[in-house]
């Protein structure tokens, strides 16, 4: 069994929210190293060399993203830190915000040094009231201790972190939707070009990263990219916090190296299924990502390449487990309903497609659908994929559409039987 690695979180129930606790565990050592002894370019190179990939869902190289910032000296430049953790199944960033907020602040500080940033805005989902208070307190503490503010650690850099609350819209987790929202508008994604690196927050160059991605930066800088690369797999380096939810005995978060077999996470770390149950389906990366059948799930390792080969994606590493009592049509309805609720309403395909998918899924469950309707679902998802401003439409199409593709026989059984064969045994949605 792969051991849990504690890079991001303290072990057990420990909480390092206070500056003293954090500092006594190597806190801000990396920041001191970077600001006092490294050139910004070197920090950027180190992060690039570490192979760190964004932990927000898309898995894009963090160092690469930073290097897209224009070199024209245009100021101010901002970090938008994405703490709008709203992907169903995902609750990992919340652990960092609640139990190790200084890790994030230190990451932001180093990123600011590496990219000549003037201020960072942490956009936190509005529902995270507790984590918000926790982070604000930590920021104030850090500022009081001179880690934020003017001439930080004698480096000459001025930098500050502001925590901003969202108000309950999944779409604000999309990078340009987040920026719109942060600027005080509806969180509707912007069309690209221009890209955020050139014209982001308030039309200024902006780098946008997920909380966990930023929290990885301090130990990469402190221990070096080689050390970090040694954890995980070749193109999926380091650890991540896997959140396991659904029908397992021990749901929760587990920080493990990328590339751990999914089977091991479910059956060893998360305590396996309820007695007497067998596995039906697993969503490996939050509800946006294509679902896996039990057979597929037993085969895959949790890293970018393996999952892509298996026809899904790592996403946020949020694992949702369904056992054999679960009706997959109901799961698909729950997902379709979510995306219908959260589509921002800009693009035609997403606004109308999410609604239609939900209606069709419901008609399958109610037993009023036909086999042609299942084909229609397939075609609607093809209308939605890759045709819109942002990826929410793709997510909606994948999230529920792949249920039909991978569990066609279950859907057909609903059609033939005129209703749900699991009535009374399955979970309710």
């Amino acid at each position: 069994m792969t051991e849990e690695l504690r890079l991001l979180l303290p072990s057990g129930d420990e909480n390092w929210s206070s500056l003293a606790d954090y500092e006594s565990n190597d806190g801000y050592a990396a920041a001191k190293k970077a600001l006092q002894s490294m050139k910004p370019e070197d920090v950027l190179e180190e992060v690039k060399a570490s192979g760190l990939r964004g932990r927000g869902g898309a898995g894009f190289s963090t160092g690469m993203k930073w290097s897209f910032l224009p070199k024209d000296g245009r100021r101010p430049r901002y970090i938008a830190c994405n703490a709008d953790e709203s992907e169903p199944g995902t609750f990992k960033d919340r652990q960092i915000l609640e139990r190790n907020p200084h890790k994030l602040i230190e990451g932001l500080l180093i990123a600011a040094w590496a990219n000549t940033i003037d201020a960072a805005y942490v956009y936190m989902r509005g529902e995270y009231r507790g984590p918000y208070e926790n982070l604000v307190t930590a920021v104030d503490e850090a500022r009081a201790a001179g880690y934020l503010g003017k001439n930080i650690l004698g480096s000459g850099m001025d930098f500050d972190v502001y925590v901003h609350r969202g108000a309950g819209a999944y779409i604000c987790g999309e990078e340009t939707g987040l920026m719109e929202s942060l600027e005080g508008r509806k969180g509707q994604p912007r069309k690209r070009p221009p890209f955020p690196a050139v014209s982001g927050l308030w039309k200024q160059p902006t780098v946008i990263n997920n909380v966990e991605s930023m929290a990885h930066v301090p130990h990469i800088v402190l221990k070096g990219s080689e050390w970090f690369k040694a954890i995980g797999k070749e193109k999926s380096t380091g650890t991540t916090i896997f959140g396991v939810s659904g029908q397992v005995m021990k749901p929760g978060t587990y920080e493990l190296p990328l590339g751990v077999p999914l089977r091991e996470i479910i059956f060893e770390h998360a305590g396996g299924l309820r007695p007497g149950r067998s596995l039906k389906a697993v969503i490996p990366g939050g509800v946006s990502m294509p679902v896996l059948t039990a057979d597929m799930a037993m085969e895959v390792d949790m890293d970018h390449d393996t999952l892509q080969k298996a026809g899904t994606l790592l996403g946020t590493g949020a694992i949702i487990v369904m056992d054999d009592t679960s009706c997959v049509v109901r799961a698909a309805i729950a997902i379709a309903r979510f995306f219908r609720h959260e589509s921002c309403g800009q693009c035609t395909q997403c606004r109308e497609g999410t609604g239609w998918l939900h209606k069709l899924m419901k008609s399958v469950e109610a037993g009023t659908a036909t086999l042609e309707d299942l084909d229609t679902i397939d075609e609607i998802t093809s209308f939605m994929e890759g045709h819109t401003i942002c990826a929410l439409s793709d997510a909606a199409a994948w999230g529920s559409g792949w249920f039909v593709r991978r569990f066609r026989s279950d859907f057909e059984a609903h059609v033939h039987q005129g209703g749900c064969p699991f009535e009374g045994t399955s979970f309710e949605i």
Partner: protein
Amino acid sequence: MPDGGAGQKFENPVTITIDGREIVAEQGDMLLQVALDNGIEIPHYCYHPKLSIDGSCRMCQVKTGAPKLAIACNTPVADGMEVDTQSEEVAKARRGVMELLLINHPLDCPICDQAGECYLQDYSYGYGRADARTTSPRRKGVKRHPIGPRVVFDQERCILCRRCVRFTSEISKTNELRVFGIGDHSHIGTAPDAPLDNDYSINTADICPVGALLSSDFHHKRRVWFLEETQTVCPSCSKGCNVKVGMFKNEIQRLVPRRNDEVNETWMCDHGRLHYAFAQDETRLRDAVVRGESSNGTVPVVPLDKALEDAAGRIKSTADEHGAAAVGILGSGALTNEELYQLAAFARAVGTPNVDVPVPTGEADGFLIQAEKVANARGAREMGVVPGDGGKDASGILAGAAAGDIKLLYVVDARSLLAASDAEAVQAALDGGATLILQDANVSELTDKAAVLLPGQVWVEKDGTFTNHEGRVQRIRRAMTPAEGSYCDGGIFTRLSALLAGTDPSAARFDARATLAEIAEKIDGYAGMTFERLGSLGVKLGDAAPAPAPAEPESEEGSAPAEPA
């Protein structure tokens, strides 16, 4: 579309290929507009050439070589770009958008005013699928909601292209409309207590690609396919917005703007759009009237030719008795250049220097609405309908009439006069005892006071030209057949001039085309102007002058006479 195409010059020309056709375009221009300019249809909803790019309807997707389809409206052209608008992948994407737009769109085309000029209908035929795959109930919303005093909103028909939202934020700058809600509950709305009420609100109905926003004035009035549309110019102020008049059975049904980037872009104000009833309502004057001593209460209607003879007789006798300067002529800026030219000729025939055009003025808004509230005030000045040497201007003429110096007042278009002048001055002029000859198309306070009433015509019954405030000469075209036996105002002037000269008035027919030729010859700036040269968008003063002829060596005299045109 504005002239362009052939003679267009590019600063950074690039060559792209659309469906195998090579096209030269300006680097960085958006692909959709380039395609449209070159006559290649790419279907679109949210894109509008005069509004910012929204990119949300996703209808204009084309294949550009990138892995995904790109929206043409937000894709800058670059050299060597190869675009495919016809492949199966593109067709499928369009089919998808159409089907998704239609799953919640009501099937009420039979009662929708937009039917016949609806993008959704047209593209549905062009790019949609024939059958519907869903029978589930469509989304419900408010219908025929008066979203403003002049615009009706049907929420169910809205496809959320946000053209109207962008119009109110970018063009009218009044910010009345926004999208409220999220996802498939999104809908266009106004803030509480802030309806869509601005001077340009009905333009939102024009740019709405479907029947969600409609003009209250045109609501349920007439199917658009019955309208006969004529390109002309709005007469309500000196901006000269280019419009189309939609007629049905010789009645104006609506005015809509037409694009002229030099004048009104593609907009017009609500006032101008709704100001047309005077052309056809009960206020129109149709009969010529001559009041003698013995008319006692009844309105003595006479044939128009008789009234013209009577008017000419009165003018002649006044001039003979008191001198020509005892005749005061007040023209109108509502007339065409050609008519005004004939008015000037008529004034010369009378011999009076007391000629002027009173111009009603009001507020200007810095966008389209101009201060001069008639179409052709500039034209009147250009045509020389101005006081002659030592002549009186409009207020001088009124004062002269009040003082008894002016014995005969010849007024064209009393409503212009009343709007432009002090009411007391007009009353005093009438009290002065001068004979009033009134040439007018509509009833006014002066109608009953005229000794001779000559019914004129309105702009929509005429052919001719207007000169707008910045000196752009534009065509107006006859859309409405005038009443039988009536003459346009220009025809009244030519006949009166003939009567005064003692020639046969029936030979003095007014010909707008011939008059324009004469204007082109005689009046500065109008050189080279013909109806054809003006085209549908007009020409600025001076711009139609033919290029100076090259020296003509073959001429026997050796050089052409140096006569300025």
